[in-house]
């Protein structure tokens, strides 16, 4: 179990992590989600006592990281793939880590086998591809057979085969009853792997919820209509108190209505419908809506909606319904 309490990190005037409090519970995969620059990596570095918090604390099974006896046996982490000495072989990079925590040397061979690097164990790690580097990093995280595993953007830059492998590995590790804490900026990735979700934006906690609840609460459902008599249909919907938004391709989208009700309404006024379908916004859209006001780096381009409480530029999650 990892407990964060009021964790804050300031770099000069900029607050990267802002009073973050949450608990990573054992036995599940907890997804740590946020746009780029939300403070995920900084938070993870503070959890490992690499960065000093400005204020607040992190406790691992009730203790500070620095108090852990042989920490690799409690918690294994993949922060960035290239955090190894390139001039040293994969085997020796793992060996020196193992020795520092009194992990038997045979374990080095085991984890190399587990991540599929046995064939290149004696090769210098600077020649490794990103995917191989990521595997080596995961091998180092697994070295102490820890109960808690932390992965920072493990699928970043990997090919589909590598992504597939990491997903399955995380599921397998969670099935063994381990605590998995994995960060990502991709909601779709989280939806596939996480049971619990912690969402941050600009260093602040935006959501701490089960995946199922998040889907329930955040996905927007609407009805899509297409008709050759679009003008009439729209007037009719407005007259009946529905807000119809033009969504391109001659379709209209209506929030908060059922297909039955809209179908009957169109039939009663003899409007021909070519499409009448219930739609659910993707989780990606739900995530973007949630973090819309808290996105660090906006693309400056077509400002469709303007206004809003976020900084200038199009608000994430709104662009999809506009065009």
């Amino acid at each position: 179990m990892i407990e964060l309490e009021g964790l804050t990190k300031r770099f000069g005037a900029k607050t990267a992590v802002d009073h973050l409090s949450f608990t990573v519970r054992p036995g599940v995969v907890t997804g740590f989600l946020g746009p780029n620059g939300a403070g995920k990596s900084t938070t993870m570095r503070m959890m490992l006592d690499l960065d000093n918090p400005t204020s607040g604390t992190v406790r691992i099974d009730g203790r500070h990281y620095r108090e852990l006896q042989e920490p690799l046996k409690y918690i294994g982490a993949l922060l960035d793939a290239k955090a190894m000495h390139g001039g040293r072989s994969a085997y020796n990079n793992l060996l020196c880590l193992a020795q520092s925590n009194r992990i038997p040397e045979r374990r080095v061979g085991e984890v190399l086998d587990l991540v599929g690097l046995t064939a290149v164990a004696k090769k210098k790690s600077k020649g490794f591809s990103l995917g191989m580097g990521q595997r080596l990093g995961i091998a180092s995280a697994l070295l102490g057979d820890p109960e808690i595993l932390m992965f920072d953007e493990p699928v970043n830059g990997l090919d589909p085969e590598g992504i597939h492998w990491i997903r399955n590995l995380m599921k397998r590790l969670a099935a063994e009853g381990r605590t998995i804490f994995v960060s990502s900026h991709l909601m779709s990735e989280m939806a596939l792997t996480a049971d619990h979700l912690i969402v941050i934006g600009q260093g602040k906690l935006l959501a701490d919820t089960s995946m199922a609840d998040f889907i329930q609460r955040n996905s927007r459902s609407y009805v899509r209509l297409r008709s050759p008599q679009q003008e009439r249909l729209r007037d009719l919907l407005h007259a009946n108190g529905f807000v119809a938004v033009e969504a391109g391709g001659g379709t209209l989208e209506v929030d908060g209505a059922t297909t039955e009700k809209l179908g009957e309404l169109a039939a009663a006024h003899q409007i021909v419908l070519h499409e009448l379908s219930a739609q659910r916004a993707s989780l990606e859209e739900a995530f973007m809506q949630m973090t819309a006001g808290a996105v660090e780096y906006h693309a400056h381009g077509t400002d469709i909606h303007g206004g809003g409480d976020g900084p200038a530029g199009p608000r994430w999650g709104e662009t999809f319904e506009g065009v």
Partner: protein
Amino acid sequence: MAAASAVLQSEWTKIRTVSSTVWTLASALVVTVAMSAALSALLNATFDDLSELERATFDPTFVSFSGMVLGQLAMVVFGVLVVGTEYSSGMIRTSLAAVPQRAAFLFSKIAVAGALALLVGMVTSFLSFFLGQALLGEHRTTLGADNVLRAVVGAGLYMTLIALFSMGVATMLRSSMLSLGILVPFFFLISQILSAVPKAKEVARYFPDQAGSKIMQVVPEALGSEKAPYGPWGGLGIMLVWVAAALAGGYLVLKRRDA
């Protein structure tokens, strides 16, 4: 706290599994011994061309260490790389996640690298001495002569302290390039030049290399060099203070700053 022996073993594995360890330490030995031998042979051949003062203060022991001016640079590179590659490779985050106690991590590393530097330094100084004396012909001295053993052991200590000082500086600066960019010109140029400039040399004699190298002299004011306000052990003590300051500074930086 991770067991000290485990961290020492880990640091030993780190140091023996990178090629830079071998080539820096081998360079330190070869360059020092070869250059000292060449200069010993040269001085033996041109002894009669020396000034009267230089002949009167001729110090065969010191002459057999004259290659250290260049050889110490390899020791600087060794010391810098031992620490600096942790930062340049990003390994430091992995290392500190494995050994979060900063003092245990840093001082284990320094103990292992320092012991290795001491071993190579001693071998270098004894080799340098014996080869140098063999080439000095009739001007030679022996290990049994007054203060000679002190100077030879001192030369080994000097090389070790140069490496330790470099480790401290690299820990403070957290970069191999920056540390080498400062230390190499400092030891090779600035310190040497300032020691020849009037007034400036009053300050330069307190630099770690200038003060520390006094231990290698058997004859006071050897070869017409100027009298220093400290003796051989005093000079080594001054160097030790520099080393302690650099290591303490490095530890504070490691402890306070984000990895």
